């Protein structure tokens, strides 16, 4: 049985390798799981470099004696929205913190634009971090600064632009997220959804190449979620922003992503592609998607199906 599985995996691998690089992109960075769900082969390193903005390779994280993340490997492509879902304490936040450069893994490497995020000179690491916008799970703003100052903080710290330019940029973000009425309110005086949106605006203020969000919509109402998803999607389409976010398995907004991977007991299942336009077929096989997702209108395209859809280059680019 095991041998059969391996054989089919190898066949799939050959299938991927024989396709054009663009089609190979569609198959995704397949070697996702070190455990039961690993059934594909990674593309050549040179191909990966051109298509992936960030790669987490063989990440292990120990929390005391407990293995919080177990040999997780995944690549985030340029201009892609990748969701990592899972139950509570499945390791999502650890994964997100590692990707954001906040938590050094016990072993494994995190590369951002082909440079190691954790083993690099200080200045290089800092410049990489400015390219990764991070939104924490709780809408955390600097408490002694108002909403405007919070959004302007990274710009004022890093850029040498004039105050007028910074103001222009901040106002653009403020209008984008509808925060005009709370501009000079202190974080303690503002509703939680305003703080959430301000956090996302602040993360976007440096025009990052990638946005890493931990449970972004936890504190937002359904309407607000749709609004923020729309803003991010528009930005992603306009600027080619890559987005990595963690969400609980039962959240409606996971269909906002191009691909979804599920973390279970610190292991990451193979991320599957989503197709938001079609409902999930009744018998669709989905190793990566958690059973709780069954209610979500979502289709996961497996590697076999992708071969049939190889012509759809737009999708294979991960830009919908």
């Amino acid at each position, binding site marked *: 049985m095991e041998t059969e599985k391996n054989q089919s995996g190898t066949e799939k691998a050959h299938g991927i390798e024989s396709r054009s690089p663009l089609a190979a992109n569609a198959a995704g960075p397949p070697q996702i799981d070190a455990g039961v769900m690993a059934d594909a082969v990674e593309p050549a390193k040179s191909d990966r470099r051109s298509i992936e903005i960030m790669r987490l390779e063989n990440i292990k994280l120990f929390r005391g004696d407990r293995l919080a993340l177990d040999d997780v490997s995944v690549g985030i492509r340029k201009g892609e929205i990748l969701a990592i879902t899972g139950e509570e304490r499945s390791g999502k936040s650890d994964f997100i913190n590692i990707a954001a450069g*906040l938590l050094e893994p016990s072993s494994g490497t995190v590369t951002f634009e082909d440079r190691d995020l954790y083993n690099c000179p200080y200045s290089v690491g*800092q410049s990489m*971090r400015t390219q990764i916008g991070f939104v924490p799970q709780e809408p955390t703003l600097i408490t002694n600064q108002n909403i405007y100052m919070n959004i302007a903080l990274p710009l004022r710290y890093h850029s040498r632009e004039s105050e007028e330019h910074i103001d222009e940029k901040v106002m653009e973000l403020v209008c984008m997220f509808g925060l005009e009425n709370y501009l000079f309110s202190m974080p303690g005086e503002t509703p939680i959804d305003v703080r959430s949106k301000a956090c996302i605006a602040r993360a976007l203020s440096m025009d990052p190449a990638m946005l890493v969000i931990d449970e972004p919509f936890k504190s937002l109402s359904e309407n607000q979620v749709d609004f923020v998803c729309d803003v991010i999607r528009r930005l992603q389409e306009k600027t080619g922003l890559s987005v990595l976010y963690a969400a609980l398995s039962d959240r409606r907004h996971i269909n906002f992503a191009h691909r979804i991977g599920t973390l279970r007991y610190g292991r990451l299942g193979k991320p599957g592609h989503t197709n938001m336009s079609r409902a999930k077929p009744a018998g669709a096989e989905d190793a990566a998607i958690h059973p709780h997702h069954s209610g979500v209108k979502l289709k996961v395209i497996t590697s076999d199906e992708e071969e049939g859809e190889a012509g759809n280059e737009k999708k294979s680019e991960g830009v919908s």
Partner: protein
Amino acid sequence: MAEATTETLKPGLSIFAQLARFWGWVGGLGKKLISFLMLTVRVMEFVYISLRSPLSERTKGKKLVLKIIQHQVLFTAVHAFSLIGIMGLMFGSIIVVGTLQVLEQYIAFDKLATLIRYVTMRELGPLVVSLIVVARSGTAVVTELGTMRANRETNVLEAMAINLNYFVVFPRLIGMMISMVCLVAYFEFIAMTGGFAIAKFIGVGEAFSVFDIITSVSVADITVSFFKSAVAGVIISGVCCYFGINAPPDFRFVPIQATIGVVNALLLVVLANLSITGLQILVFGIPKII
């Protein structure tokens, strides 16, 4: 026989037990001393890294950092002016009135100026102001940074590639240092002039003028006072920032860290004061008062 043996053994056992307790106590003290020394080294390293951080960050966020320095000076020095003034007046009157009454008995008024400026400027001024600043601003700094840590604001700053040593610690070190120097100078001035005013008011040492003391202030007095206050400022802010920024990310630990931070800052400030006094005696010699 058995009773006799027990009686003879009892004192012996008791001595051993007492010795064991004594060694245990000495061991415990040694352990605490070692951990305190280790803490001192860690704080020194932390301060060194923070003071060096502008070199690695170059001119990043210069305006933001200057603004935080301003805020720190405003909170530590300007807002504390009335408190320090009252304290200076009280301490000054105690010293001046007390000294005048004692010296009047020995008709040694010519030593008055030296004694008062030595006690006020070199010893009491920096120490008293340090204690006030630790109690007032030290607790505020640990609590503020501990809350930032518990609130995960420090994580967010790190994620924005903002250097915590440069953005959070460095301005507080500089702000506290500037504040301490200003407050000590202010305290000393109020203590000497106000003390004399009180003495005149109650009719003690009428033959003396405050200008006798002010004109007798030497460069050594100013140097020692300045050095002691600057060092105290760095120690207070360094220790308090260290305990604040290294607080566990949990609100329950904020008051605990504040207590530990303030106690350690007090200990280190007094130790530093003692060390500088020793150094000053080595450099300038023992002041000849009488």
